[in-house]
């Protein structure tokens, strides 16, 4: 059975795993952003997670999960630029703040963590669900956890990840109303939003990473 919670060292490894995943997904994400945006999203995500990995590698041994996420947010925001830089950067910082004082992330932590990210995203980006943005994936991930009582981390993450994927897929049917692709209006129809897709990829990578861990780690 995969582990039921993550400590700081797990989190570091998981972030590195997401960074690898992002590098693999670069071309796909860029093609999505070429269709409805300016074609830089995949590059930005790869560079941003690369910066996270480097930053986290350099953090002192004892850094907790809260500090790691906060520093990851700073690194992402400081390294990449673009709309996604500030938005995901602030989301990661908010996630760090939501975990303040915690040593581990378990199933119970996932909801406050994801919901703090949604709050931070809405505050910074002013989008609404249905605007064909990152928010549609974040919001759907949160929705997927409603009513889940004290789940273990893996099943919570799996649910959230499935929600995020559904949310990202649903953006394909939305006209763009915000950000660079909004100038497309209905012409964006059929193409999923790159940012939403990235978020789904992140949650899916987290789930996959957790699944791969040996039971003994629990």
């Amino acid at each position, binding site marked *: 059975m995969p582990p039921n919670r993550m400590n700081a060292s797990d989190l570091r490894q998981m972030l590195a795993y997401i960074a690898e995943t992002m590098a693999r997904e*670069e*071309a796909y994400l*860029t*093609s999505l952003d*070429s269709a409805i*945006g*300016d*074609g*830089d999203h*995949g*590059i*930005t995500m790869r*560079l941003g997670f690369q910066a996270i990995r480097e930053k986290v590698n350099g953090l002192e041994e004892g850094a907790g999960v809260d500090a790691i996420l906060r520093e990851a947010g700073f690194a992402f*925001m*400081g*390294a*990449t*630029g*673009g*709309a*996604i*830089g*500030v*938005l995901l950067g602030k989301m990661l910082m908010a996630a760090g703040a939501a975990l303040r004082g915690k040593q581990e992330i378990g199933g119970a932590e996932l909801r406050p963590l994801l919901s703090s990210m949604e709050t931070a995203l809405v505050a*910074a*980006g002013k989008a609404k669900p249905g605007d064909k943005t990152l928010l549609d994936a974040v919001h759907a991930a949160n929705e997927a956890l409603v009513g889940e009582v004290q789940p273990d981390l893996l099943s919570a993450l799996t649910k959230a990840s499935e929600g995020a994927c559904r949310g990202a897929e649903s953006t394909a049917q939305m006209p763009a109303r*915000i*950000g*660079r*692709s*909004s*100038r*497309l209006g209905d*012409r964006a129809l059929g193409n999923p939003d790159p940012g939403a897709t990235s978020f789904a990829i992140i949650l899916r990578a987290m789930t996959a990473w957790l699944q791969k861990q040996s039971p003994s780690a629990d």
Partner: protein
Amino acid sequence: MKKLINDHDAVAAQAIEGLALAYPQYLRKLDGVMAVVRRDAPVAGKVAVLTGGGSGHEPMFAGFVGRGWADGSVAGNIFTSPPPPPIYEAAKAIHGGAGVLFLYGNYAGDVLNFDMAAEMLAQEDIRVSTVRITDDVASAPPERRSERRGIAGDFFVIKVASARAEEKAGLNQVTAAAEKANDNMRSMGVALSSCVIPASGRPIFEISENDMEIGMGLHGEPGVQRRPILPADEVAGDMMKRILADLPAKGGDEVAILVNGLGATPLSELFIMFRAACRCLSDAGLSIVRTYVGNFAASLDMAGCSFTVMCLDSELKRLLLAPAESPAFVQTA
């Protein structure tokens, strides 16, 4: 994809390094960040003008730093807004005690990152004001003008605001001049081919061998009409009609015009387009005070061009024509 580059992730960084090495008479690079500032920055008592945005539009923005131009400029990666830390650092490096004006094209990424930097600067009691450039008529209807994106019109707004700052006007006045410039100009572009982004090595959009797209943005954002290409005079006429329908101009007004190449279009074609634009303006009873033709805000190696027309009152005219020098443009009195 064939490009004269070393590392597709390092294009923006090495380009700005090259720029700074080439033009020490105008500017210098800040260590560790992709930003350049006027050679003599900070200029004490002068409002500092900071520009910036994604790379790939060279010479915009970093090429317009110097006396009479911006005090500093921050570059992001290709087509990606710079993140807050270098914006913050550049602002601190140019701040001469009279506040900083942020000038950049109105894109979500730039807004988020520059605003974030402004927050950081506010905590150090550095006054920042912001004008977002919104000249592209193709990007939103008139009633949503504030949502329009900024394209080559950056050139006029930066020139006017920087000249006003050079006159030692205060932050509010410099901001007002930038706003006036932005309110009085309109742009419209046409794209014939896509650029190729170094990191992906691929065009950012497809366009058939016979088509053009009127109103396409500097990052391949879709425009208002895609259709088979027409003779230059007709293309220019169409673009000008859309600009004039939106421009707050009346017969007899004086205007300046910028014919901006997107990167791969020969200068000869820009002159042919200007020749046509010239007739449209004179048919509309407008008289051209100053013309600029060249690649001012490119989109890597995209083929196409844009027109920007600015109506001039006496203040805008004075500021536009004031002497200024920078790597990308020098103008004498």
